[in-house]
């Protein structure tokens, strides 16, 4: 793997992790009624993180994974790592930037309403939790895929 693709893969992982951590901070901020400044900043980091991870991961996937990694996995001991988990991961990931953008818009534009309206707050918490669950799932799938490369 050339340094360019190494950096793209590493960047994809780091920005994805950063976005996940930020989403956790938004979730905890909402459940603990933390200051909205912190929640807002974290929601923004989450959106940016997922979008950057999308671009970096996409570049790596289209230009390197398909040609070099996928054949290696499919001919190796764990072909299902591509057939099931990579195919799933590359599509489930696409949900994350949109979900995190909606969450960010919610906490930026409607912070007072989220504070006052318990139904709206619960919905925000649920959305943040869904982002976390999907992001963690995608991370585990990525680990399995990495492990399957000969």
């Amino acid at each position, binding site marked *: *793997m050339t340094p360019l693709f*190494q950096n793209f*893969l*590493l960047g994809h*992982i780091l920005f994805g*992790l950063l976005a996940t*951590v930020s989403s*956790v901070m938004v*979730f*905890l901020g909402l*459940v*603990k009624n933390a200051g909205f400044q912190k929640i807002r900043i974290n929601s923004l980091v989450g959106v940016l993180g997922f979008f950057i991870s999308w671009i970096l991961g996409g570049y790596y996937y289209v230009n390197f994974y398909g040609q070099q990694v996928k054949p290696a996995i499919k001919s*190796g*001991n*764990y072909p299902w790592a591509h057939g099931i988990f990579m195919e799933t991961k590359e599509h489930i990931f696409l949900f994350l930037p949109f979900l995190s953008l909606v969450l960010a818009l919610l906490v930026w534009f409607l912070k007072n309403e989220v504070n006052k309206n318990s139904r709206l707050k619960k919905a925000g918490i649920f959305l943040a*939790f869904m982002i*976390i669950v999907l992001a*963690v799932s995608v*991370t*585990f799938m990525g*680990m*399995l895929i*990495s*492990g*399957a*490369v*000969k």
Partner: protein
Amino acid sequence: MDWYSVLVSGHIIGTALGVGGATISDYLFFKSVKDGKITAGEFSFLKAVSKVLWLGFLILVFSGLGLLFLWRLNAGAGELVFSSKFLAKMTVVSIIFFNGLLMHWKVFPLFEAGLNKPLNSEGFSKKIPLVYSTGVISIVSWYSVMLLGSWREMRFSYPVIMIFYVFLILAGLVMARFVVRKIIFKK
């Protein structure tokens, strides 16, 4: 110092902070409730320790993924990733994570609402099983993760490791229930 050494050191530090934090947190909790209530000062300590725990968890995750990335680049990580020990470790790490979220969502607000109030009140006593369950899961999980990481010769299968883990959790829950009844409810 090469990246591998940096990441391994980070992984050890993360584990130490997590195991230490979980131990102190549980010890502080039982110490706090001896007088039948949690004071603002005691709760403040618990929150501080919780922050250290989360920091440890973050360091653990980042360094762990860093190590996996290094293995992926250099020698391939198949033997590691698909070993029963690693899969069990990842399962328990996920449990630590979601248990931590649950603690902050449900348990800490409970403490905050009940500061300086008797813990054997009807309202709090109904929720006590949640409190000690999350504590038991936290401490058993952190020690399990440490053991799984350090016990090189372990060759048990994934189901065997998980059965043993669940058994430890159940044993912990029984013990915690007994201790809580003795301390808080003085039965």
